[in-house]
């Protein structure tokens, strides 16, 4: 039977998928062709995406569909010949985007209907949980995870089994233990966790319940960030379905194990991605980190033993339980096992969600899967790990994806943000962007972070505005090291990384800003100088008419001149000149 499925993750909807759905539904209703949804297919750059299935087989994928395409699609679907849709159909190059990936955490994303537990079960869902509850001991479960080599996918890469085991062994004071999912995905440029929850919420629930059993948790809590309303709706729905199906609540799958799950919506604070701050927030306080020790495994939520992992970590667990730890451990490198999901964005040709085995090189991902840089520009660097990470220069793209190898570059694996930059991105500006972020997100508790990141931001700002001073680079370095050493939690301790890595690999850009008052990437407006070349200007007056500051003088058919003192460096003149008479440097 023929049916269609529309990719409706947040970004599909943002791109217009829901509108496509409402346009298609009435047209296909007559033809008796059902319209279903799925979550994020991962090819964000091709959204909205409409998949045509014959029974369980995907026969054609339509991309960049708009409402206007609906009649044509309906007409083609009514007949046998789909070739009328060739123009909308995905190209082989784009298909390679998915084919080069190895999807475990994302295995159901873009395939199952996230609103339907039966669809999940049909894909082998909840088999892992059933297996665990039909006779495995807690130690055995943890052992499988240990063998798999699964490490925390939130960024730090701490072995998952170790945390589980610590929480399992830890004595509860009043009988409660908590399993918490950190879905406060705050790195700007990372959206893997959102995609998993929106696209495959039961996978998360199953992974969490396996973990809950392993540590002996009495309650599971998912802390979802406030900016993800769709994820909350889908997860709420899934929790209800799972509870009804006996995967949550009392005597799960008929076993002695009981554990329920609830969602706690965050309220907008990046620092709550730090596990102790997250616990503070769960308890209804300001999200300010606690001192460690004690670690959450000893005294976490309500001072009881608590285990916290992020979404992607849990999303790997059901697969590991059904396929075995060894199978998972076969993928990856000596020190990093399995796969990792990345949100590939920035100046890359094909952006979206990418899951690859550890050990692939950055080049494989960015060029092999992502297709390289848009508009034929030169690649400069990739930013990994968000505000805690760093920029890895193009010259080092043979670095393999591995916790250790990435850490050696000064960046980190991070939660999976991979923002690709071309030659037009100023690296000082990039560092400033992240410090602006951390300054705003610092909780304000400790001095090194509260004032230190603020001062770093201020120094970077003056450099990008042409007011950099001699000694600023050294001052940045000294301050960065002190902030790393002195800050209380991970946010502050890693906040200087974007500055340190750009200083390490792009020091010449800093020097150019400070000494020559030039921005080599032509991004820092304060350092730009637009000029009209008299030999090329024919006096068409276009630039003068477009200049919002009225800073261009000249009469018709005479070369024009920019009054530099009044120029606001907006670039309108350059954009409006059709004779190549205006340059910027």
């Amino acid at each position, binding site marked *: 039977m023929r049916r269609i499925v529309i990719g409706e993750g*947040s*970004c599909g*909807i*943002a*791109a217009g998928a829901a509108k496509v759905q409402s346009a298609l539904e009435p047209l296909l209703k007559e033809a008796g062709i059902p319209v279903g949804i799925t979550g994020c297919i991962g090819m*964000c*750059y091709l*959204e909205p995406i409409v998949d045509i299935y014959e029974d369980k087989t995907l026969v054609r994928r339509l991309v960049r569909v708009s409402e206007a395409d609906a009649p044509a699609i309906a007409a083609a679907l009514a007949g046998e010949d789909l070739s009328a849709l060739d123009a909308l159909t995905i190209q082989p190059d784009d298909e390679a985007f998915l084919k080069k990936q190895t999807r475990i955490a994302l295995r159901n994303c873009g395939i199952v209907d996230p609103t339907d537990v039966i669809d999940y079960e049909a894909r082998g869902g909840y088999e892992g949980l059933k297996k665990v509850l039909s006779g495995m001991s807690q130690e055995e479960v943890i052992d499988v995870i240990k063998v798999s080599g699964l490490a925390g996918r939130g960024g730090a890469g701490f072995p998952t089994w170790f945390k589980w085991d610590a929480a399992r062994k830890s004595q509860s004071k009043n009988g409660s233990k908590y399993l918490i999912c950190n879905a406060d*995905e*705050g*790195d*700007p*440029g*990372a*959206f893997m966790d*959102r995609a998993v929850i929106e696209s495959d919420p039961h996978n998360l629930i199953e992974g969490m319940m396996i973990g809950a059993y392993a540590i002996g948790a009495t309650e599971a809590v998912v802390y979802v960030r*406030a*900016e*993800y*309303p769709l994820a909350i709706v889908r997860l709420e729905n899934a929790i209800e379905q799972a509870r009804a199906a006996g995967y949550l609540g009392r005597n799960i799958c008929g076993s002695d194990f009981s554990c329920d799950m609830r969602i*706690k*919506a*965050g*309220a*907008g*604070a*990046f620092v709550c991605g730090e596990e102790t701050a997250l616990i503070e*927030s*769960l*308890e*209804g*306080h*300001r*999200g*300010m980190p606690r001192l460690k020790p004690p670690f959450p495994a000893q005294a976490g939520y*309500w001072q009881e033993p608590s285990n916290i992992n992020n979404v992607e970590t849990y999303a790997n667990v059901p697969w590991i339980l059904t396929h075995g730890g060894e199978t998972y451990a076969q993928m990856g490198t000596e020190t990093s096992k399995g796969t990792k999901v990345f*949100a590939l*964005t*920035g*100046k890359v040709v094909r*952006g*979206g969600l990418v899951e690859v085995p550890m050990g692939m090189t950055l080049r494989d991902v960015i060029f092999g899967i992502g297709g390289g840089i848009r508009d034929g520009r030169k690649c400069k660097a990739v*930013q990994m790990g*968000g505000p805690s990470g760093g920029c890895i220069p193009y010259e080092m793209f043979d670095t393999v994806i591995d916790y250790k190898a990435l850490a050696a570059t000064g960046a980190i694996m991070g939660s999976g*943000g991979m*923002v690709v*930059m071309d030659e037009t*991105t100023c690296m000082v500006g*990039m560092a400033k*962007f*992240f410090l602006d*972020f951390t300054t705003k*997100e610092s*909780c304000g508790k400790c001095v090194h972070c509260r004032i230190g990141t603020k001062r770093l931001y201020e120094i970077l700002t003056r450099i990008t505005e042409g007011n950099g001073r001699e000694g600023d680079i050294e001052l940045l370095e000294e301050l960065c090291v002190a902030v790393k050493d002195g800050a209380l939690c991970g946010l502050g301790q890693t906040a200087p990384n974007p500055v340190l890595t750009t200083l390490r690999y792009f020091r010449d850009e800093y020097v150019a800003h400070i000494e020559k008052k030039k921005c080599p990437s032509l991004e820092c407006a304060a350092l730009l100088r637009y000029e009209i070349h008299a030999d090329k200007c024919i006096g068409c007056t276009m630039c003068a008419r477009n200049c919002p500051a009225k800073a261009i003088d000249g009469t018709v058919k005479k070369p024009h001149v920019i009054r530099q003192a009044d120029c606001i460096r907006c670039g309108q003149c350059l954009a409006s000149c059709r004779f190549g008479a205006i340059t910027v440097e």
Partner: protein
Amino acid sequence: MCQCSQQKSDLSLLAPVLEKYAAVPGSLITILQKAQDIYGYLPTDVLYAVAEATGDSPAKVLGVATFYTQFRLQPVGKYLIMQCQGTACHVNGSERISKAITEELGIRDGETTADGLFTLKDVACLGCCSLSPVMMINGETYGTLTPEKTVKILRSLKEQAGKEAQG
């Protein structure tokens, strides 16, 4: 936090929320979220009512309400523009979009236009990176923005609001 503003909110709207959550430990954030859903923001008298019901000190309630960016202590405009400050948006020129909004509406982050129509708020990554630069207005996402496109969207909203006011 001063009560001298003589604010009077209809606290009966909040009663069911307080009834359900006030006694549940750790529910302060949830209560504030629900309160904001009701009132559109968190009026001072509502914060005091929450404090009284939960037993938290008003100082603590205000501390929590001012820690999280989701909470607003002032009413927002008819259109809440959430401008994404994510990395991909930055790389793809979100600063020019901010500038365009500020030039068109005369407001900066956190401010509301005098006519009460628009509030601009910088937000952390909205997660639509492949559509960057992105803004979200009252739940609707607008992607691959250019300054011109942004201005067009704002003007059409203004027009729409004008029509609604007349009609």
